């Protein structure tokens, strides 16, 4: 017996697993239409690479990965692409998402494919590429692309490989029945994983003690392989990645870290089967084991279901009684979510379709006020304080929520399960997480906008400065041109520049006057005009003086002075004219 550790908290809801394991894994007829959502995984949605009307074969790539953290999609059966459009998918929002619809031809013809049996001699990089090309994601829950998870990089060597066969959620038996029937292939898949991860020291399959048949089925195949099957007591939620790591190794995964940071990789057992099929048989991930259970269906059983099969197809083939149950849940009763419609397709992470009767899972009781009983804190497997988180989520106090490690909540629903007041605690945490993530995104966007605004301002300023500089340079050039006068005219212009001192103004005026004397003909004409005018004035003045003398006026003196003045000016002009003519 290998030592195991015990996680804090946890609950023991009724298991209800026996109903669906009485028969083996069944097969359903191929549905007429299959809908393949382009985003069934964490990361970027795949990009369609087929056209409407195109015929495809089973296993043909119908959508290419968009980037590193993304996966391709394959046709789950042969047929014709009948639509590429938005369809309802299995999401709590009930919103539509881009999907590819295939109308099957019923032949289920495979595309040519070939596996490799001697994977030991193939480089891990090549194996990883094959895993990526097969469109494999984690099939336990979140759907993280396996090729990314299995490639932690050189700086994080992996010494422990954990295979998660816990399947702790009630009702679900997909992994259980897969192990019972496919133990050999699963162990083969684990060996491939080991080769990809450069043979880690510890390889453990973690499994709860409520699956004795599965444990028995595994035993002969792991014998002598170095793989140990670790059995531990059943408790919900032992299957959480962090919880399982603690149960098997006693190591706690630090908050915000990935298992690879402490040298571990945790892979769902369903994924190992898909990896075996991808490498050895060359088959991409086009089907998975899904449990159909709940009292509202007549047949409770596991099926090897094609990805893209509508949930309604599963239900009708299992005698679903709509009157008996009000809702259909994808996933288990603890973490699953009610489907918006039965037309949504099965995706790579769908391990269970639960159609409970009203008696089995009654509708939620109305929530009542928190009575501070503290049962949620006892049940929390992450040792958080659900009650405090509840208050802070109500108050939208993001700072305190983060301080109380809201993001370590795995949303297992154990707190809601034990709550005597029926408070939908998990929904509060999901809402709060969404708000905080949204706020963080907004912050990043705001910072980006600020940066762009600052840059914009800087650019405008720089443009303004450059314009100013150009203007200054032009002025400078003009000044220089004026400083070296090529002609008298330019000099006068330069003199005309705005200057403050009186001396400058006088000089400018003189220069202007000088400029006006430029032409001797003009001067002569002007002088002649002046002389003519002066002679006229003198004549008038002498007449006035004569009159004044006659009438003995008192203006005599003034007038005689004026006459004298005019005569002098006339004399001056005449001399000037004589000079000019000379």
């Amino acid at each position: 017996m290998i030592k195991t550790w015990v996680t804090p908290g946890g609950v023991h809801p009724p298991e209800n697993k026996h109903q669906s394991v009485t028969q083996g894994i069944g097969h359903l007829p191929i549905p007429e239409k299959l809908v393949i959502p382009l985003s069934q995984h964490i990361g970027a949605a795949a990009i369609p690479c087929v056209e409407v009307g195109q015929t495809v074969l089973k296993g043909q790539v119908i959508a290419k990965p968009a980037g590193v953290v993304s996966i391709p999609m394959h046709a789950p059966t042969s047929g014709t692409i009948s639509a590429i459009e938005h369809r309802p998918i299995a999401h709590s929002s009930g919103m539509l998402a881009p999907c590819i619809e295939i109308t099957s031809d019923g032949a289920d013809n495979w595309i040519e494919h070939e596996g490799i049996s001697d994977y030991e001699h193939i480089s891990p990089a090549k194996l990883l590429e094959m895993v990526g090309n097969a469109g494999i994601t984690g099939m336990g829950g979140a759907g993280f692309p396996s090729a990314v998870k299995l490639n932690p990089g050189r700086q994080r060597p992996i010494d422990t490989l954990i295979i998660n066969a816990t399947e702790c959620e009630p009702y679900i038996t997909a992994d259980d029945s897969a192990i019972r029937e496919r133990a050999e292939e699963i162990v083969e898949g684990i060996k491939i994983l080991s080769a990809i991860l450069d043979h880690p020291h510890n390889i453990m399959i973690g499994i709860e003690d409520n699956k004795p048949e599965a444990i028995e089925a595994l035993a002969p195949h792991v014998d002598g392989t170095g793989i140990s099957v670790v059995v531990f007591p059943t408790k919900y939620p032992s299957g959480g990645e962090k919880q399982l790591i603690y149960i098997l190794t006693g190591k706690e995964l630090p908050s915000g870290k990935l298992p690879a940071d402490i040298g571990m990789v945790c892979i769902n057992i369903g994924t190992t089967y898909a990896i075996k099929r991808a490498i050895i048989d060359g088959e991409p991930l086009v089907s998975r084991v899904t449990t159909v259970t709940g009292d509202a269906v007549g047949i409770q059983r596991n099926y090897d279901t094609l990805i893209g099969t509508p949930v309604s197809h599963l239900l009708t083939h299992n005698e679903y009684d709509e009157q008996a149950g009000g809702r259909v849940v994808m996933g288990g009763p603890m973490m699953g979510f009610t489907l918006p419609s039965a037309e949504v397709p099965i995706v790579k992470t769908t391990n269970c379709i639960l159609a409970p009767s009203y008696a089995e899972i009654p509708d939620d009781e109305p929530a009542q006020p928190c009575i501070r009983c503290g049962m949620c804190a006892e049940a929390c497997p992450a040792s958080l304080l659900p009650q405090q988180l509840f208050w802070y989520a109500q108050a939208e106090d993001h700072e305190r929520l983060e301080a109380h490690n809201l993001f370590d909540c795995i949303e297992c629903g154990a707190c809601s399960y034990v709550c005597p007041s029926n408070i939908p605690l998990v929904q509060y945490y999901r809402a709060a997480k969404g708000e905080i993530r949204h706020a963080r995104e907004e912050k990043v966007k705001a910072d980006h906008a600020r940066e762009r605004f600052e840059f914009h301002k800087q650019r405008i300023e720089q443009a303004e400065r450059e314009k100013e500089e150009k203007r200054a340079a032009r002025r400078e050039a003009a000044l220089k041109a004026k400083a070296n006068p090529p002609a008298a005219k330019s000099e006068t212009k330069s003199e005309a520049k705005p200057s403050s001192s009186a001396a400058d103004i006088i000089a400018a005026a003189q220069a202007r006057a000088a400029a006006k004397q430029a032409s001797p003909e003009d001067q002569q004409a002007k002088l002649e005009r002046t002389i003519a005018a002066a002679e006229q004035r003198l004549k008038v003045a002498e007449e006035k003086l004569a009159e004044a003398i006659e009438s003995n006026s008192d203006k005599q003196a003034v007038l005689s002075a004026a006459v004298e003045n005019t005569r002098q000016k006339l004399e001056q002009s005449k001399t000037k004219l004589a000079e000019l003519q000379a």
Partner: protein
Amino acid sequence: MIELISQNPILAALAALVGLAIVFGALLGFAAEKFKVEGDPIVEQIDELLPQTQCGQCGFPGCRPYAESIANGDEINKCPPGGQSTINAIASLLDVPAPELDAEHGEESDVKTVAYIREDECIGCTKCIQACPVDAIMGAAKFMHTVITDECTGCDLCVEPCPVDCIDMLPVVETIADWRWSIPPKPGLIATDKRGELANQPVEEDAA
């Protein structure tokens, strides 16, 4: 020395205190120079809280000038894009009571918008490009312009200058990627009173 001190206790005490004052004064002076903070840190903090739409609805040319103005004692309720949550955040930062949003500067809207240019109608006048505070509009004179949606802050500033009115402010469509859970309705004091009312509501989650 000890004798001197014991004989003049008052003078010795004075000398000691003066000495200490000089030493600490020098230390503080040095620290003030060495660890001097450039700019006004409170402006930075306020600027961090503003939504950075750069829309100018507050009456300042951008978020930072408004942050500076708040630091100088301006009202904190002039930012409609930030809304009440921004007002509350600034109020708690500055430790002042949080007022209601000043309706004079605009109304808070729950719907985020982005600018959209009807490209057929664009005449390529570059007026919107000049108006955009975050350079989110691409184009050149006499060529069609278009908005880089990811960079657009939804500030509205490009709508007014457009001579042919070909810019619309479209609400941002919520996709499945940014859908979020909502906080469940608060339980009342006596939940049983609401049993009938709640039973008619669609079930939102199976919290078993």
